[in-house]
């Protein structure tokens, strides 16, 4: 079954990259331009009639968002993951809410959490989890939770605490050597 799916996808999308293959599991990476075609093809001709999940990975180092659509062939309990990279700046991804009624909720969440826009979703922008969030979308890698909580809620009194490794070093005079390597914190 998976062999057939793989072959048909490969014929249609020669640039496809295989990520993982098992007897009831296939993960492929396609070019951005072919992502929608691959999903539609999977639904209409390959039997992957259900959208299980739309997931986003913030690949900050590569400056892209990796969007993964997880589709399922219900009768065979087979999973197909289709991934594609989208540039991080003003990221726009086509919506699937016209094809699947479930897509809307996934896309609303991604819009809130990553700031990715899905034009074509009739309920885009409707509050999902967050209300009146003005900051960086929270699931982005460059959103620092600790920094945010310090900024918004103020710093807390740190508790009394000693790091055994540094404490032992202080007691035995580990850094009191002729060449004087510095203690971690003082560097």
């Amino acid at each position, binding site marked *: 079954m998976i062999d057939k799916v793989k072959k048909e996808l490969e014929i249609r999308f020669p640039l496809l990259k295989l990520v993982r293959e098992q007897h009831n599991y296939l993960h492929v990476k396609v070019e951005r331009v072919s992502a929608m075609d691959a999903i539609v093809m999977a639904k209409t001709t390959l039997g992957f*009639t259900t959208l*299980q999940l739309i997931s986003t990975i913030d690949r900050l180092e590569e400056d892209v968002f990796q969007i993964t659509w997880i589709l399922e062939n219900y009768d065979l309990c087979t999973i197909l993951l289709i991934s594609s990279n989208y540039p991080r700046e003003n990221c726009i991804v086509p919506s699937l809410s016209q094809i699947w009624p*479930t897509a809307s*909720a996934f896309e609303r969440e991604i819009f809130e959490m990553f700031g990715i826009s899905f034009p074509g979703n009739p309920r885009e922008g*409707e*509050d999902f989890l967050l209300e009146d969030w003005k900051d960086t979308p*929270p*699931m982005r890698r460059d959103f620092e939770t600790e920094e945010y909580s310090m900024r918004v809620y103020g710093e807390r009194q740190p508790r009394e605490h000693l790091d055994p490794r540094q404490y032992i070093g202080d007691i035995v005079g580990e850094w009191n050597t002729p060449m004087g390597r510095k203690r971690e914190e003082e560097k």
Partner: protein
Amino acid sequence: MGVNPATDPKKTTHLFFGPQHPGVTGNMSIEMWFDGDQITKAITHVGYLHRGFEKLMEKRLWIQNFPLVCRICVPEPDINEECYALAIEELTGIEVPERAKWIRTLVLELARFAVNLMAFGGQAGTLGLGTAAMWGITFRDFVLDLFEELTGARIYHIYIQPGGVRRDLPPGFENRIEEVLTKIEERLPELDRLVLNNAIFKLRTQNVGVVKPEWIKEYGLVGPVARGSGSVRDVRKDAPYEIYNKLDFDVVTETGNDIYARALVRRREIDLSISLIRQILSGMPEGPVATKLPNLTEWRVPAGEYYSRVESSRGEYGYYVVSDGSLKPRRVHVRGPSYVHAVPLLERMLVGANIADVSNIMVSLTTCPPEIER
């Protein structure tokens, strides 16, 4: 909430149901518009439970996420641990000893058993049949005693680990499971008389909250919601994990499409769990229960992505785990069945429903907001 009702405001009632209401499962709310006592439009609002689990997981070591993932589901924490552990094992290639697989299956089945007992009684509870709900909770408590003995905790077990489980079964544990099974089995007919053979229950649930079979594929419905409408989907059967392929069972399915059918599925799942637990206990092999892991604070999971699936009491449950080869996960995306059951499906099912049936319908879908707002 900036959404305007579609109908004439003079004729409709606009109501917020939840987030704090005994009829709501978990902390979520439904914004509803009524014409008389008929719902004309419903919107699910979540966000009251959002604790940023997925963000937090990216900040913690792989092993430190186990005390976190179990908290996504109170009644059935083990599926989260199992899903997360399965993904890590797939990415790292860690082997699980045979006995650990059996113990894991035992734990998952015990948890399913407990949650179905509670959900079955709870379904009657939404109709004011408090006794049935209390009995369901009591039966579940007997199972929680077993969990306490096995894992050291009643609710958040933190028992399944990559490469196995954290402890072996205590001596004589099999006998105690059998005692509890027998005790509950003896008393289940009482619960049946109170719930399934109850005129009120039948009147309020039959032909109410209908899930049409054609919705199953469209929405991706799973678990009792799908199986109450004739589906035979069950990950335990279709994509067996752990040792489910060594157990003898048939997928429970009903064709009533209504709440009564879903309650019946849960009731039959209870019997199925009892049978599976007995099969597991009789076939349990000896051997080690955990594979040695590397230094936990220096443990790097090789880069890769995996979507692991298990069957929870509510249906197919998935974890999309992404590693970039570092000490911490790159992304963990939890996909619970409530995502579609509580948002698109519930919004659709409630239209045309009676206001008195809202919590009834919601409980029959066992919506669980933590799965939506991890």
